């Protein structure tokens, strides 16, 4: 290789190396300044939130004061990264506090800068962004947007309808079950468990009148969900609905019904006897065997059945 060419390649390589080092230094500097900004936002947020929840004697909690301080440290619409960081801080704080402080925070969150940021995500085309917006709204307890969220409860995108359904349960509790007959799409097992747990978190006191409204549903996943709710809350008064679904054409619905009855029988011994009586009606041989096995384990006398 001629010497001139070699020199040219070395120069190119050195240039590339210098550019690379400069780029790395710039990126590190940019990251540092971003982290500094985040720390500043967190410090101001902590200061203002504590001031808002426990104002100094003689002072009133002020929304405007919090709003101004956050804008001053860069939480503005044109800086979406800062707004997103503030939303995360708000959610974290909301999850940590309960009682009267939680109510105070809910009022504050309706007033301070990013309050449009989450609902604005619902206007985006990307369903993931919409789902993220809904998640932020229900985690910050902003139930004034319930109407916009309810529209997505049966959306074709699984993530979007999942978050919309959880939001409805968070805001309405047992009342949200009246939407069940209008859900035509699949409700995954994971989603069912999430709904049941959320319902248990937000409202421990069962309201069976809303559950009765949901009985109209024909969707097997929704029926499974109802059965799981009956099991979780030990609703012995609703046991007829579970027995009815022992003959459901869907294997999964029958499975949920069997597990529910086996759980309920711990509290009501009569259920085991009734289960033995109706066992012949279960369409699957495997499931009949399964019921027999569990009943025998519980020490019940099992009559000879045609399997």
């Amino acid at each position, binding site marked *: 290789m001629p010497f001139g060419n070699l020199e040219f390649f070395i120069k190119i390589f050195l240039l590339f190396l210098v550019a690379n080092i400069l780029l790395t230094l710039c990126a590190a500097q940019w990251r540092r300044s971003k982290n500094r900004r985040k720390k500043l936002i*967190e*410090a101001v*947020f*902590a*200061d203002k*939130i*504590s*001031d808002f*929840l*426990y104002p*100094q*004697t003689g002072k009133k909690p002020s929304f405007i004061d919090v709003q101004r301080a956050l804008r001053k440290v860069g939480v503005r619409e044109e800086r979406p990264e800062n707004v997103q960081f503030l939303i995360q*801080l708000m959610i*974290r*704080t909301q*999850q*940590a*506090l*309960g*009682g*009267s*402080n*939680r109510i105070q925070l809910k009022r504050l969150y309706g007033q301070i800068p990013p309050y449009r940021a989450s609902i604005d995500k619902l206007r985006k085309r990307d369903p993931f962004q919409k789902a993220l917006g809904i998640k932020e709204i229900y985690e910050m307890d902003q139930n004034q947007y319930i109407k916009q969220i309810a529209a997505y409860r049966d959306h074709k995108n699984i993530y979007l309808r999942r978050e919309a359904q959880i939001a409805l349960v968070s805001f309405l509790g047992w009342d949200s079950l009246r939407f069940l007959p209008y859900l035509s799409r699949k409700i995954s097992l994971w989603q069912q468990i999430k709904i049941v747990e959320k319902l248990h978190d937000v409202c421990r006191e069962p309201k069976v009148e809303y559950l009765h409204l949901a009985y109209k549903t024909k969707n097997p996943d929704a029926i499974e969900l109802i059965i799981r709710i009956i099991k979780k809350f030990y609703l012995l008064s609703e046991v007829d609905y579970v027995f009815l679904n022992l003959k459901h054409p869907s294997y999964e619905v029958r499975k949920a019904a069997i597990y529910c009855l086996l759980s309920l029988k711990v509290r009501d011994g009569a259920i085991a006897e009734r289960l033995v009586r109706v066992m012949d009606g279960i369409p699957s041989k495997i499931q009949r065997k399964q019921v027999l096995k569990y009943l025998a384990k519980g020490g019940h006398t099992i009559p000879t059945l045609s399997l």
Partner: protein
Amino acid sequence: MQKRVLVLQGDLVMRKILERMFHTKGYDCHCLASLAEFKDKDVQSHFHVVVTDLLFRGISPQEYVLKLNGSIKYDKLFVVTMLGQEKIKRSISRLTTIDGYFDYPVDLKEIEDKI
């Protein structure tokens, strides 16, 4: 004389809220992000109440509680943490006497009442 309170919380927001709560109630409140920030001169001091988290970097909740017991003198110990599992609560209670265990979401009014 003002009663002394020590708040040990890694989360800045929670630390500030607790600090402000104790200040408004007339306590002399000291706040730290971790036990490592504790200065030697404070080791000798005595606190009326210690409010602490259990989650700190590089140390298990059980080890942390033992370390806290060895380094600080206090009358009452309250735990405010996101760890709500019964297993943790039991193992911590076995190691030391706890006057109140509050997992998230925590109602600070309950802490005020207990103090």
